[in-house]
């Protein structure tokens, strides 16, 4: 029943997509200045239908309709309501439906909110966007149909993979998708802009809010994924350079570069073709990421179960997209020469872009390198954190310094009257760095530089904040994001340097001492929960310096549906530090393997990222206020 409703709605959406393209082409021919009302209506229907379609799938999950394969494979009647709901997008088909929803809704909203831009530009954007929508709808309908039936109807579902049953992960896909699927709209707009020669300042204004939306959500989405990895995977870190994580980071780099160069286009009418390249690149990278994750070409912790035909479909679609945009781009490309003064805001923004592109290429190389070696030399390699850390970290120092100076530079030509100020800030940062090192005791040259440059950015942003407060200029959003970025790197640096990590085996009743801490294995008990059994350990952490006791309860969970064992870390988050314990059983022994970690400033890493993205939302709010 629900399966039929869902399929009908999907099919209706295909028809609507085709009719939008047809009507839009008709509309291009006539000489009216306005877009016909009919197109608006059909777009509204399209968005409504796809939402109803999504809610059909959601209700199939909620009422546990196991006649639908997707529900059968990914849900279970005993699963808590919240995870039944979020299970809708915790699988390939469901999340692809979410893709299409965001494509469709963004298409409608872009049409609605750009009324003062020329008709042809808007119509072409709509057509391109609908071509994308159709591409994904066909894929959804014929290859990855979330409403496929299973016969005979099973009595019970197989259950959602337990490590996906986590609140952070429930919100992770929607946030991330608004980010990188949202970038489709400026891909379409960029193509429309090339086709209609609608360039420059006005083009920048028409897409800037969309870039902001996708960038802010992408930031939050990456954060949610990272929080999930920290709390759920039990590896004790927040970023692992896993291919899937990288796939979400790549479009973020492109978006961040775009966000900045768009300012130059809007203010100085420069860099138009570069902005177009970034618009196209962002969405192409998003689809590439999807390809890498969904096709099974890469082995990673969280790739979905795969089927080679999916990979082929996405790859064909991706190739068409890339070739169409590259050919069109070269067809329209004009060599524009502009003189940039090396000491101007434009140049500094371009420097930001170089850094972003550098990071992008590094991460992209690291991610696809294993595929290349395997195909070309039949040799399996894996590129891990050491590669990324060595290549990226030293460059971050330079990046932070430019980031501190850049915003203070004036447009066109700058006079360095504030050199003196920067010098003072630098001295201050070095002083702060050494007092941190003195207080915490620990030393490495690279981390000193990281901390100095991060503090430098923080102080510069604070000075900037003070100045704007006096002048009442509206750039709090930028300052907020930059300041938080400085704090982010600072906290990551501190966290990395002053973490304690101990790995040892303990039996019930035993105690382990190291530095100022002792870890005592107090108790072990078995408990039954709604959808799993758990072996829970009780550990007492004693800090002899502060004479403080803390109790942590790591778990080994045994899930029935599907039968899986997961190791749940017990984490005590504090304002200054997190304690982190995981326990795993050792075969044929009474001993348990204990991993203890003290991680300073974890919470502040999350908070910094939230504020980075809040900067984006704040700018969005300011822009909206300006427009109306």
């Amino acid at each position: 029943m629900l399966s039929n409703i869902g399929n009908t709605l999907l099919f209706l959406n295909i028809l609507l997509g085709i009719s939008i393209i047809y009507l839009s082409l008709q509309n291009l021919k006539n000489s009216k200045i306005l877009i016909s009302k009919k197109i608006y209506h059909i777009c509204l229907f399209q968005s409504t239908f796809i939402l109803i379609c999504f809610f059909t799938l959601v209700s199939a999950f909620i009422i546990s309709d196991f006649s639908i394969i997707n529900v059968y494979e990914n849900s279970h009647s005993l699963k808590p309501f919240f995870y039944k709901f979020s299970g809708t997008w915790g699988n390939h088909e469901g999340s692809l439906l979410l893709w299409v929803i965001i494509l469709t809704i963004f298409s409608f909203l872009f049409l609605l909110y750009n009324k003062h831009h020329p008709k042809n530009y808007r119509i072409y954007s709509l057509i391109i966007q609908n071509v994308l929508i159709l591409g994904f709808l066909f894929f959804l309908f014929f290859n990855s149909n979330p409403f496929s039936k299973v016969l005979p109807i099973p009595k019970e579902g197989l259950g959602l993979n337990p490590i996906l049953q986590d609140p952070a992960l429930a919100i992770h896909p929607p946030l991330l998708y608004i980010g990188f699927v949202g970038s489709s709209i400026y891909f379409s707009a960029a193509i429309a802009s090339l086709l209609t020669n609608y360039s420059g300042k006005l083009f920048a204004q028409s897409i800037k809010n969309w870039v902001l939306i996708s960038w802010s959500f992408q930031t939050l989405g990456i954060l949610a994924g990272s929080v999930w990895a920290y709390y759920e995977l039990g590896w004790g870190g927040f970023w692992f350079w896993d291919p899937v994580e990288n796939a979400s980071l790549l479009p973020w780099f492109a978006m961040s570069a775009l966000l900045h160069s768009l300012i130059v286009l809007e203010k100085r009418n420069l860099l138009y073709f570069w902005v177009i390249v970034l618009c196209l690149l962002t969405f192409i990278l998003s689809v590439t990421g999807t390809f890498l994750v969904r096709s099974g070409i890469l082995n990673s912790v969280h790739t979905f179960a795969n089927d080679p035909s999916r990979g082929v479909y996405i790859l064909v679609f991706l190739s068409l997209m890339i070739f169409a945009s590259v050919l069109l781009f070269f067809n329209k490309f004009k060599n524009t020469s502009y003189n940039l003064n090396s000491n101007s805001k434009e140049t500094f923004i371009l420097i930001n872009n170089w850094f972003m592109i550098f990071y992008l290429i590094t991460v992209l190389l690291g991610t696809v390198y294993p595929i290349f070696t395997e195909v070309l030399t039949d040799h399996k390699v894996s590129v891990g954190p050491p590669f990324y850390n060595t290549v990226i970290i030293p460059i971050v120092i330079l990046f932070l310094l430019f980031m501190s100076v850049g915003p203070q530079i004036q447009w066109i030509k700058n006079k360095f009257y504030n050199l003196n100020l920067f010098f003072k800030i630098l001295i201050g940062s070095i002083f702060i760095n050494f007092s941190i090192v003195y207080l915490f005791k620990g030393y490495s040259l690279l981390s000193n530089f990281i901390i100095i440059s991060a503090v430098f950015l923080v102080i510069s942003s604070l000075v900037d904040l003070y100045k704007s407060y006096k002048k009442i200029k509206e750039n709090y959003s930028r300052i907020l994001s930059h300041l938080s970025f400085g704090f982010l790197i600072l906290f990551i640096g501190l966290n990395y340097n002053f973490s304690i990590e101990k790995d040892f085996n303990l039996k019930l009743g035993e105690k382990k001492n190291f530095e100022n801490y002792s870890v005592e294995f107090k108790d072990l008990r078995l408990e039954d929960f709604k959808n799993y059994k758990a072996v829970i350990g009780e550990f007492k952490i004693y800090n002899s310096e502060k004479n403080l006791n803390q109790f942590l309860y790591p778990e080994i969970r045994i899930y029935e549906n599907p039968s899986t064992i997961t190791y749940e870390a017990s984490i005590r988050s504090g304002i200054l530090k997190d304690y982190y314990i995981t326990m795993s059983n050792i075969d044929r022994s009474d001993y348990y393997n204990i991993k203890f970690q003290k991680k300073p400033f974890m919470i502040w890493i999350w908070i910094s990222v939230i504020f980075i993205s809040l900067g984006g939302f704040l700018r969005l709010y300011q822009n909206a206020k300006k427009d109306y």
Partner: protein
Amino acid sequence: MQKKIIKSTIILFIIFIIGVFFIGLNKNSIYDTKNLVGQKIANVQLEHFSENRIITEVDLKKNNFTLINFWSSWCSPCRKEHPMLLKLNKEKNLQLLGVNFKDKKINALKFLRDLGDPYNVLARDELGKHSINFGIYGIPESILINKDLVIIKKFIGPISQDDYRYIKNIVRK
């Protein structure tokens, strides 16, 4: 002119990347066990558990069907599936090849003494390296093959009552 060179370089580069992706997609990854069914097993080389010899394809062709079962004495689900294996041992058209996975010899022998020995041939994979070639993630896992060494089905986790019936049906056909 310059524009043309850049354009063709970029296009060739993209074609190269997409080509590599495409080949990569069609390449079989050992870790991807979903596609195992229908493939042929080749290059079998397993150490015999008690005799000083290597088990090869020849041993797998001795009966119409072979169930390769990966197990260990320390794995509790293996105990659970053991009665099913003992029942399968009675099938005429089926031989059982056990692969003792990352186990100690004494413990493995005790396990078989206590619970019964269902295996026609027993191999040993002390380091777990050979099992990876069969696409084994963890144990217990079992692979059902026919005389042509083609994989008919792979069972992840313990063999259940349903799996037992499934194997029985295929073997008796």
